[in-house]
């Protein structure tokens, strides 16, 4: 198989699988229960992968991811209420016709992401000066601040929460009868993975990893560490915001307490379970973690004893998480054959003139 073809192999397979699943969902083989689980998986993939940019690739310790999720969730929810929910609490009437829902939805989500990007400056700017544990508490504090702030904004319902986002979803289903929530979940999860992969594997993004291994020499070697940090934080928070938007529209109801320290902790666990700086690790751990939670639901209270125990054991045997800093293709080199090789990594044949012997 030529490299040209290979380039499309994995993406097309993934898309195919997603299409099959969506089809099955449409005909009802995959019922709502499985659909919500798949949705949750998608959201968790976004959460863990995005947090991995800061906590994994850059090696900082940010514990406030839930807060940024909240921002995205609220902004996108408010938008979709204003645009599509008749008799909403803000404008009182819908600004757009229901048929527009499908077109507008991705933008609603993305704007939510953009909003949490802006808020993430709260963390990014101090991060220039302070490091690891000081940054850790700045993020925790930010999380507290965001949730308390929302609690005090009556227009979005405060602790009473915000609802009505489901109307947007139902409008989509009315226009074209498909399991839209699932579709958007897949779309954004896939996008997240692609985007993070591209950025982190470009020479630009590698600057972020350079900070993790040695910030000083990075700076000395012409890497603008401040802008790298800015990039990492805004980037990861933005994606968290996207996850929040999806979360809000999946539930159709959000309130601040859904985005507390617990949410952040979950994302943290997923990142370190998967392995710092390993994208495939984050994805895998998101899958495993979500499914574990669901399977152990019958265990009731014991669930929250069993899961931590399992995690502790896993860490005892794999002190770097599932993947460590490696990707799946590095753990199983065979998989490399599925992807087109990066030509830049192949040693050029033409040798320069004067070579040091």
């Amino acid at each position, binding site marked *: 198989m030529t490299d040209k073809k290979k380039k499309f192999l994995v993406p097309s397979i993934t898309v195919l699988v997603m299409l099959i699943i969506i089809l099955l969902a449409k005909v009802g083989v995959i019922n709502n229960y499985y659909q919500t689980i798949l949705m949750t998986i998608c959201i968790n993939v976004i959460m863990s992968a995005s947090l991995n940019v800061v906590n994994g690739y850059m090696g900082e310790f940010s514990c406030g991811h839930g807060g940024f999720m909240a921002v995205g969730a609220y902004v996108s929810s408010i938008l979709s209420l204003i645009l599509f929910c008749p008799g909403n609490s803000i404008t009182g009437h819908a600004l757009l016709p229901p048929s527009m829902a499908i077109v507008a939805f991705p933008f609603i989500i993305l704007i939510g992401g953009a909003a949490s990007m802006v808020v993430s400056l709260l963390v990014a700017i101090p991060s220039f000066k302070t490091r690891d544990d000081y940054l850790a508490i700045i993020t925790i504090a930010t999380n507290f601040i965001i949730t308390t702030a929302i609690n005090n904004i009556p227009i979005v319902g405060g602790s009473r929460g915000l609802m009505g986002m489901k109307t947007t979803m139902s409008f989509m289903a009315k226009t074209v009868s498909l399991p839209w929530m699932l579709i958007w979940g897949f779309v954004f999860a896939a996008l997240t993975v692609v*985007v993070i992969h*591209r*950025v982190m594997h*470009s*020479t*630009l*993004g*590698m*600057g972020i*990893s*350079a900070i993790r*291994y*040695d910030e*000083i*020499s*990075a*700076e*000395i*070697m*012409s*890497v*603008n*560490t401040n802008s790298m940090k800015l*990039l990492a934080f805004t*980037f990861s928070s933005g994606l968290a915001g996207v996850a929040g938007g999806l979360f809000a529209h999946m539930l159709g109801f959000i309130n601040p307490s859904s985005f507390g320290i617990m949410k952040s902790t979950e994302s943290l666990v997923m990142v370190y379970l998967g392995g710092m700086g390993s994208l495939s690790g984050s994805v895998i751990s998101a899958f495993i973690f979500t499914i574990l939670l669901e399977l152990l639901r019958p265990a009731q209270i014991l669930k929250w004893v069993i899961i931590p125990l399992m995690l502790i054991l896993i860490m005892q045997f794999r002190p770097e998480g599932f993947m460590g*800093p490696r990707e799946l293709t590095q753990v199983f080199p065979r998989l490399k054959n599925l992807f087109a090789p990066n*030509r*830049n*990594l192949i*040693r*050029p044949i033409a*040798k*320069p003139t*004067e*070579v*040091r*012997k």
Partner: protein
Amino acid sequence: MSKETLLEIKHLTHRFGGLQALTDINVNLKKGEIAGLIGPNGAGKTTVFNLVSGFYVPSEGDIIFKGTRMNGLKPHVIASLQVGRTFQNIRLWSDMTVLENICISQHYHLGYGVGSALFKNKKYRENEKKIHDEAWQLLERFNLADSALDYPKNLPYGIQRRVEIARALSLQPELLLLDEPAAGLSTSDLSDLITYIKWIHDTFGVTIWMIEHQMQVIMSLCDSIQVVDFGKEIARGTPEDIQKNPAVIKAYLGNEEIS
């Protein structure tokens, strides 16, 4: 060899809190020369380098490189002005491949932004190719291409030194600061190192300023030498003058390497 000034340091003084680290250091590096900065441990040699590479902001005095004043510029800016340096204790990104190490050091002329990286547009592809080609070429010239995809932490110490120097050169510097390149090398490797540095100097036409304790290295490489002790300059001149200079001998008293 032209005689124009490349780096000029005037009345450089630096304090850490109350501690006076450097007092009135003056330097004048000519383009293309190999200069040495020597002195007993803790004399403040590395501090000078840190000031030049922008890691500290000098308390007083000016650092002028190619006519531009560099005081208070951020290190990455200074790097992009083509000042490369190595470190006393090797500071490679030991968990990234040698190739990546070289590529990342070309951040100063990436030529594309996040947007291009996201969409992998033409601009991105071309620049990535350019960066990698340059990197490969550099590695070839340093005869490091075989270990291009290895992790530095798995390479022998001597090779790591070379990689670090190669990385510094990937900034295409006009001025290269070498902080004790011989540190950790056995005396048998020294002559090798000397020819190595000579080779770099000739092939890359780079001005080299080095801190070194191994007098053998200094004496056989440097056109001019400057001696500091307790943050003050105590002597400067050609290797020959320095060897005879009583002040230097006094500073190094009991240090046999000198003669």
